[in-house]
């Protein structure tokens, strides 16, 4: 195809991927199946060999299956886990060739062009694949051909190898379903008497295209190699995790720090290559008794400077119980954010955002980053809801404050004051202090927000007064006319 060389594609089909995966984790004897809820019924999703031998099949209702086979053991299927398993197998298969893609939900396609000699030729690749997969407990059907379509056909219909350039000859005897056609097309072709791929290839193309559309011929051409079909290798997302395994256990804080420093330097290099910065880091320390200790570090800003991150680990590492010693360190950037390279200034003056971020990270390791708060404006005339507090490192400072009327500097939950009437009391007691009113400004009537059911505002309207006392204190009192009473809610500067 390109550079005069035939592509060679291996298709691996796992007919029992999900049940093999489930049985690998928790082995069982006897018929076993995974069930999936479809509509209103539990149906068999994936069966092991014993269950298939008992006459069960995929898509069968579970109740029916139990009648046929009383010994059937089942577990619920997990499609997400299944996809993860296939992705892991795909990653593993890159040992044969760098060009490995997924083939549907239960298969892999490997482009082994030019890589087969590393395993002693194509037969060597297939034998190695089969041996390793069966040792791992997976049933696999392999097909090798020059095109993806032919490899798929061979894998799904009896396995086999098509010699280079002889794809059509190899699949000519296979049923038309081997061309990855829709079931209704397959039925229609069979009704016409076109049962095998070979029959289809010998039939004039124009009437076929008229009857079944271009899709059928596209599939046929892809299988015979007449039109190329690309193979998309899975993306390799960058992995920000490293580990360091030690020949002898360590226990001193300084030693663990030194190990962490090594991992951190390498991790930061990876982060720099991806123009990313770590936001959350996790250091997992495995002890010789197989217990693991975790140190989690949350940073105030995305960072990839080992010299700035390492001191932040000190506190966490000191708190670790090393037991009989630690023999493996694993450092992972759990949360990564893009961090483009920046022009560095020559000075780091106080007030520099990066220095502030470092300080907040350090404080955050002690009290938690979510406990460093910032005040943000909120759209409410209710005093206690007129502002928001948000974690400083996850928000930006906001402006747009407005206070049309003076507001107290300090606000506290309302404290009752013994007084009556709708005009401010002349003298009252608050916090065991006898206070007398010198001047009163108000009232400023605030209505509760009916769209919130705030227990504190159930007493209805509030008439706020700014009271200046002869004793000096400037207080914010309110009167609730609907449920008469006086309360102190704040103090002015």
């Amino acid at each position: 195809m390109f550079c005069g060389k035939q592509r060679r594609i291996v298709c691996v089909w796992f007919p029992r991927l999900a049940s093999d995966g489930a049985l690998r984790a928790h082995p069982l004897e006897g018929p076993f199946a995974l069930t999936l809820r479809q509509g209103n019924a539990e149906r068999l999703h994936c069966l092991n060999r014993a269950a298939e031998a008992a006459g069960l099949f995929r898509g069968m209702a579970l109740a029916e299956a139990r009648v046929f086979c009383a010994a059937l053991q089942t577990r619920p299927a997990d499609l997400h886990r299944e996809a993860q398993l296939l992705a892991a197998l795909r990653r593993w298969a890159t040992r044969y060739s760098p060009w490995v893609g997924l083939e549907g939900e239960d298969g892999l396609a490997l482009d082994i062009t030019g890589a087969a000699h590393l395993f002693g030729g194509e037969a060597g690749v297939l034998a190695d694949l089969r041996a390793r997969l069966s040792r791992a407990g997976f049933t696999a059907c392999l097909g090798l051909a020059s095109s993806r379509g032919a490899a798929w056909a061979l894998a799904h219909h009896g396995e086999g190898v098509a010699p280079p350039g002889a794809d059509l000859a190899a699949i000519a005897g296979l049923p038309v379903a081997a061309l990855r056609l829709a079931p209704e097309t397959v039925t229609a072709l069979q009704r016409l008497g076109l049962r095998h791929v070979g029959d289809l290839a010998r039939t004039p193309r124009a009437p076929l295209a008229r009857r079944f559309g271009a899709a059928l011929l596209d599939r046929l051409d892809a299988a015979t190699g007449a039109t190329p079909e690309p193979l998309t290798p899975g993306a390799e997302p960058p992995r920000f995790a490293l580990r360091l395994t030690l020949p002898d256990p360590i226990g001193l804080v300084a030693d663990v720090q030194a190990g962490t420093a090594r991992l951190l330097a390498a991790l930061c290099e990876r982060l720099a290559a991806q123009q990313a910065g770590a936001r959350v880091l996790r250091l997992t320390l495995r002890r010789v008794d197989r217990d693991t200790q975790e140190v989690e570090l949350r940073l105030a800003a995305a960072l990839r400077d080992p010299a700035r991150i390492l001191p932040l680990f000190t506190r966490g590492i000191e708190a670790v119980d090393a037991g009989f010693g630690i023999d493996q360190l694993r450092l992972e950037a759990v949360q990564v954010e893009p961090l483009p390279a920046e022009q560095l200034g020559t000075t780091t003056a106080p007030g520099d955002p990066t220095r502030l971020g470092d300080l907040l990270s350090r404080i955050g390791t002690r009290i938690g980053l979510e406990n460093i708060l910032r005040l943000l404006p909120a759209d409410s005339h209710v005093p206690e809801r007129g502002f928001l507090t948000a974690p400083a490192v996850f928000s930006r400072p906001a402006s747009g404050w407005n206070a049309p009327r003076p507001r107290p500097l300090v606000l506290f939950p309302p404290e009752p004051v013994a007084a009556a009437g709708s005009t401010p009391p002349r003298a009252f007691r608050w916090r065991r202090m006898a206070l007398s009113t010198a001047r009163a400004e108000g009232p400023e009537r605030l209505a509760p927000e009916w769209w919130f059911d705030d227990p504190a505002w159930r007493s209805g309207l509030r008439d706020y007064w700014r009271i200046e006392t002869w004793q000096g204190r400037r207080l914010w009192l309110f009167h609730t006319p609907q449920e008469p009473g006086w309360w102190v809610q704040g103090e002015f500067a």
Partner: protein
Amino acid sequence: MSDTPIPGYPLRPGRVHEVCGPGATAFAAICAAPGTGPVLWIREAHSREALTPQGLLPFLDPARLLIAQTRTQADSLAVAEEALKDGTVPLVVLAVTRPLDLREGRRLQLAAGAGGATGLCLIPEGMGSNAAETRWRATPRLAPQPGPDSTPFRWESIKNKSGTTGAWDVLWEAATHRLRVVSPSRE
């Protein structure tokens, strides 16, 4: 009326000061007003009193304020020490709920000296630490005439390691962002 400077005010940077009395919060806000950098306000999470940004507006831009909520005073002190030592935050305000012993007070002083930041402890009456550079008592006063700028205070300097003590009647002018000493009062 005169603009007599108050000895000890503005607070000496690189030291830790203390303020008590009912006007302590406003005192801290006035101390934070002249700068432009962030202000770290450390308080314990269980405290019932909350600072309101609208109330801070006459003194400083609430966006400058960072509030650290801690569980215990030990955490508060650790955060204050860290922030003072770093010096990135020019003013660190620490709400103290139990008296500091000499060791804690001294550690804060050393941290402030290392970082060059100013520390201000809001202390309950009579809970001062011997290590403090200055100690103030701020009490609000009744304004002679009503008005939005009527925020007079009586500031008493009750301890000053490097200067004289005294008492002053001061007034914060929100419009000009300026502290005015009304008159030196004698008692």
